[in-house]
């Protein structure tokens, strides 16, 4: 396999528009995700972060140009995009509650040799609960299942939507650890409200405001600028946001 050119972004999004039930929820969004590290997608509640990710995956109607390592994926159906190595960890986890943990993971295995040991070492908790129905797990454990479903395959890109939402601080750290580990194997586009997690994981940020990109650049440049943090994200600084 010939790898991408060193500086070529793994994902490039140009003039992306997304619609849900006829309503425009993503408007002319353009940005790149570099081939390594974590890129955070930020913005106030309801600004269209989740919709942007769903548009990239074709989970909602979209137009525009999306390239994965240079190849167009904006007309492909969702399952084909995922088969090309794009893993998705949705907001609110979306584990299959009536299926066991083991079945959730088995369903997600796309590769001939799934990385079961990696998943087991990242989430030892899940090993003990393989036969438990995912619907009866705690929120944190469900998030582990959702992450494990993504990490069990080799991916070229991870799309991770608010993985720490509603979790206790200790679990937030665990999730962040797992993401840091995952980022060593594949680039991540991460939606995250917790700015401490963003600061820890992300090198770059993309900020959306009313459906459009209003800032792209190094994470520190944004996070150190309290004025812009407040203007773009509606929080005063990361100590309060955490």
């Amino acid at each position, binding site marked *: 396999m010939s790898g991408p050119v060193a500086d070529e972004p793994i994902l490039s999004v140009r003039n992306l528009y997304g619609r849900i039930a006829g309503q425009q929820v993503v408007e002319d969004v353009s940005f790149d995700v570099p081939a390594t590290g974590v890129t955070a997608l930020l913005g106030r509640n309801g600004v269209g972060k989740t919709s942007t990710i769903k548009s990239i995956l074709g989970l909602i109607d979209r137009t525009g140009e999306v390239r994965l390592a240079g190849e167009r994926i904006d007309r492909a159906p969702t399952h084909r995009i995922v088969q090309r190595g794009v893993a*998705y960890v949705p907001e609110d986890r979306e584990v299959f509650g009536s*299926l066991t943990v083991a079945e959730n993971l088995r*369903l997600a295995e796309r590769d001939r040799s799934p990385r079961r040991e990696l998943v087991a070492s990242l989430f030892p908790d899940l090993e003990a609960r393989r036969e438990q129905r995912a619907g009866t797990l705690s929120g944190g454990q469900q998030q582990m299942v959702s992450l494990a479903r993504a990490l069990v395959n080799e991916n070229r890109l991870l799309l991770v939507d608010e993985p720490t939402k509603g979790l206790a601080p200790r679990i937030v750290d665990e999730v962040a650890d797992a993401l840091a580990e995952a980022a060593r194997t594949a680039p991540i586009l991460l939606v995250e409200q917790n700015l401490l997690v963003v600061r820890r994981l992300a090198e770059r940020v993309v900020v959306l405001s009313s459906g459009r990109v209003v800032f792209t650049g190094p994470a520190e440049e944004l996070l150190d600028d309290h004025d812009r943090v407040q203007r773009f994200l509606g929080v005063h600084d990361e100590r309060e946001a955490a």
Partner: protein
Amino acid sequence: MDTLVLLLITGLGLGALYFLVASGLSLIYGLMGVLNFAHGAFLTIAAFLGWEAGRRISDGTWTGLAISALVGILVGATVAVLTEVLIIRRLYERHIEQALVTVGISLAAVALFEGIWGTDPIYTDRPAWLTQTTEILGARIPNDRFLLIACAALVLGGIVLFLRRTRYGLIIRAGVENRHMVTALGIDVRRSFTLVFAIGGAAAGLGGVLASVYYGYVSAHLGSVLLIFAFIVTVIGGLGSLTGAAIASVLVAVLQQFANFYLGGTGDLVVVVLLAAVLLIRPRGLMGKAA
């Protein structure tokens, strides 16, 4: 006592027919959100073609019936798959259009069947044993009830095993819960749509042949009547739940039998009252997922 036993076993036999239709309806709705009004037509065409094949080879014998069943299953599955591939698939996610087009198919199918086989029921020959009775606790039970119950139990067991033990079964169970997340794991869920239609069509096809055994005739309207009760069963059991469909099939059919006998032939009315009660008190049905 003997009346109770007779009503109970007859109810179970009728429930078996309902289940053979309702299992497919429930799976199809659960996975795809499609209310398949064409399901009765799958049953009727399978009953006719199964009967045509069986009587030509060996009328009124077990061999003939086995051939009818086999042909019925194949015809039911084939017609269902064609319906999915040629029509339903093109209306992906457009649930109202899908429901309307299946209503159209069911109406057109009845007209077509009447054109070919006439408007009157055609009485069929059955193996002698099926027309005899067996005494259980003093009740003389028509033997065809046992065949129906056994077949439905086999189908239920088979579908459950398939859902629990195979990868496609896993995909279907997950898809019933959250179709979009299944695609987001890189799985082409549309392939399991076709498969679910095949399974549902096969069960309905077998149901068609067994219905002709139970009623003693084939007719262009065989499927329409069973479809109504199968839909009621599916709603009471909880749309999308196979277990719910199985339980509700037995419940509805037994209740129907008892009301017909003890409440002056009000079986259908009682079933509709039960349906209304379930819709008011527990709209998601006995085993349906919460809305």
